[in-house]
């Protein structure tokens, strides 16, 4: 089962990410211990030169991780034909116990990678490398996460057996089961609609507010609003948007919308959503460094741009979702 081009690619990406970060770890440690921008010693000079290499390496790894999430989901969706009982990515991810943990960790890696890239970008704009310590400290924290990511994907892909009868999305996202997803699925449509539009309005407004004001407080708020908005958006997808897309009152699956039958509408929804949420979170994370003197000028500019991206992402997601709902032939709420 491992001899699948996309699976080989995914495992290779995860392994290379771990190797590259592991190679950067000793350097990160010596940066944490010895970095002193005021010193003109040879050691400091070597460190300064090396940061270029490792920043580039890690940026590359993180950028690859962004693409990997897409490939992972795409691949899971495509593999569904090979398993008895699987109709979409849910069935594939359910073949063994490692599928969903692997997806969730991959999502965590995605968001952390984007936050790291934003910090790296801001650091590169300043003259005196003010965030070097924070950057490499975070890197050391990311290493275990990426290791976990590789280990989960390896366990998941090596455990794929075609003779396993898996369960499809109908059972996981049904309204009767006693799981978190079932709780979400059984939300009353009218309440779900209110929650969704309230959450999205707050997320979009927070993005626009920070874009205009560029303050530290509203930036921090945007980080929280974007994270909460992401959860609310997924709740909305499961509780009612998917129903309208399938034109079926009981099919709540957030993965089937990725399929060809539904014109890949899932990708159109998820790409702006993930982008918007990640940009918002990155803007929030940047506020931790807003007081650094050399960043006073550049940080608000970068963070405002991220806020605009975040607001635009959430807005686009909401408009698309609304458009799908309005154009659907399903009637959930009778007026």
């Amino acid at each position: 089962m491992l001899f699948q081009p996309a699976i080989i690619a995914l495992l290779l990406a995860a392994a290379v990410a771990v190797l590259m970060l592991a190679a950067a770890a000793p350097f990160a440690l010596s940066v944490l211990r010895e970095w002193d921008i005021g010193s003109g010693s040879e050691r400091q000079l070597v460190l300064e030169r090396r940061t270029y290499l490792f920043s580039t390496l890690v940026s590359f790894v993180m950028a690859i991780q962004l693409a990997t999430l897409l490939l992972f989901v795409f691949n899971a969706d495509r593999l569904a034909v090979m398993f008895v009982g699987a109709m979409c990515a849910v069935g594939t991810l359910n073949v063994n116990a490692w599928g969903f943990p692997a997806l969730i960790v991959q999502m965590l890696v995605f968001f952390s990678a984007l936050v790291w890239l934003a910090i790296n970008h801001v650091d590169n704009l300043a003259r005196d490398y003010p965030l070097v310590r924070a950057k490499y400290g975070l890197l050391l924290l990311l290493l275990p996460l990426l290791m976990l990511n590789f280990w989960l994907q390896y366990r998941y892909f090596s455990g794929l057996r075609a003779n396993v009868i898996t369960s499809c999305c109908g059972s996981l996202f049904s309204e009767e089961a006693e799981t978190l997803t079932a709780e979400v699925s059984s939300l009353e449509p009218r309440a779900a609609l209110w929650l969704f539009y309230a959450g999205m309005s707050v997320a979009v407004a927070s993005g626009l507010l920070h874009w205009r004001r560029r303050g530290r407080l509203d930036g921090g708020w945007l980080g929280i609003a974007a994270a909460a908005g992401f959860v609310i958006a997924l709740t909305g997808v499961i509780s009612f948007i998917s129903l309208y897309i399938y034109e079926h009152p009981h099919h709540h699956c957030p993965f089937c919308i990725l399929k060809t039958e539904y014109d890949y509408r899932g990708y159109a929804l998820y790409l702006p959503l993930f982008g918007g949420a990640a940009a918002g979170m990155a803007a929030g994370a940047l506020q931790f460094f807003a007081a650094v003197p050399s960043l006073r000028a550049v940080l608000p500019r970068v963070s405002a741009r991220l806020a605009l991206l975040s607001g635009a992402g959430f807005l686009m997601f909401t408009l698309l979702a609304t458009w799908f709902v309005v154009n659907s032939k399903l009637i959930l709420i009778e007026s």
Partner: protein
Amino acid sequence: MRSWLDRQLHLIDFTLGSLARRKARNFGLLAVYTLLVFALASLSLFASALRSEAAHVLAGSPEVVLQRLVAGRHDLIPPGYLESIGRVRGVQKKEARLWAYYRDPRSGSQLVFMARPDAEVPVGSVMLGTRLAAAAKLNVGDTLAFADYRGQPYPLRVASLLTPDSELQSATLVLLAEADFRAFFAYPAGHYTDIALSVRNPLEVGNVASKLAAALPDSRPILRDEMLRTYEHIFDWREGILLTVLVGVILTFAIFAWEKAAGLSAEEKREIGILKAIGWETSDVIRMKVWEGLVVSLTAFASGFLAAWVHVFHFGAPLFAPVLKGWSVVYPEFALFPAVDGLQVATLFFFTVFPYTAAVLVPIWRAAITDPDLVMR
């Protein structure tokens, strides 16, 4: 935003100029890179075309096919067997089928003869696939004669030509009336080749198959979904094996790219030194080099992919067909329907651009930290 864009555009402009200054050297890298993309893209395009062709062929086939076994070998369905199945819940239609393989000594190809009801194909006439008709220079109304199983010529009139959309399916198909079929092959009366069952509800197929297997222990039910899964598996597995073999090639390419990027000529070193002396920063040089890598990668990817497309869909992938199609090439020739799959392109991009970029990062950095005074002295 605007200034950022301008900056990148100028960097690209400069990069293109610097690439053009070292034509011979960069052309070598580009050629090798394109060749690599070409090989991998041919592989994946051909495999995905075969997969979609198989799925297409199977889409119209019955959900369950029942074969009878005698001592583990496929045998004919005897008279009364179809009736002995009785009514199975979920089965919409049962049909005993008559079909056979026939080796045509003139073309040397294996044909599939299939009996159809007299209403579709009248006795004494035949329906042919377009490719077969073209090969034998036959038109509607012409008469052709195959040598039957007693060695005598059996004349049949071409009633019409088949125009299904899948080449793989119709390339070698010959449809004729049941009476002709039995006479031609001297087929025992009342016997059939196998039984096709159509089941409407996809969730019922498994149940139907297990009921059949329990009721008729000497039979073998074959499910359409299972065939589809097997095809997917076979093609994926073959593609994966070939890819694993090609990993050596990819690694070699990565080493080659590393060497190319590491072996900076004195002139290039001087160029970077001058750039830094006039105010470029290390990060600018890295950015310029990254753009260089991207330009080379995208050009190689686009041209390699295009060449692979032509290789697979216009020439039938002569380089990979023997491995991927397998040993049992029943069909003489078929044109594959061009099908590109997003996942395939993404995977392919990953297998070529990722190793290249990973390999050139360290050399790029080495070049970028060069001290201006060191090279200009």
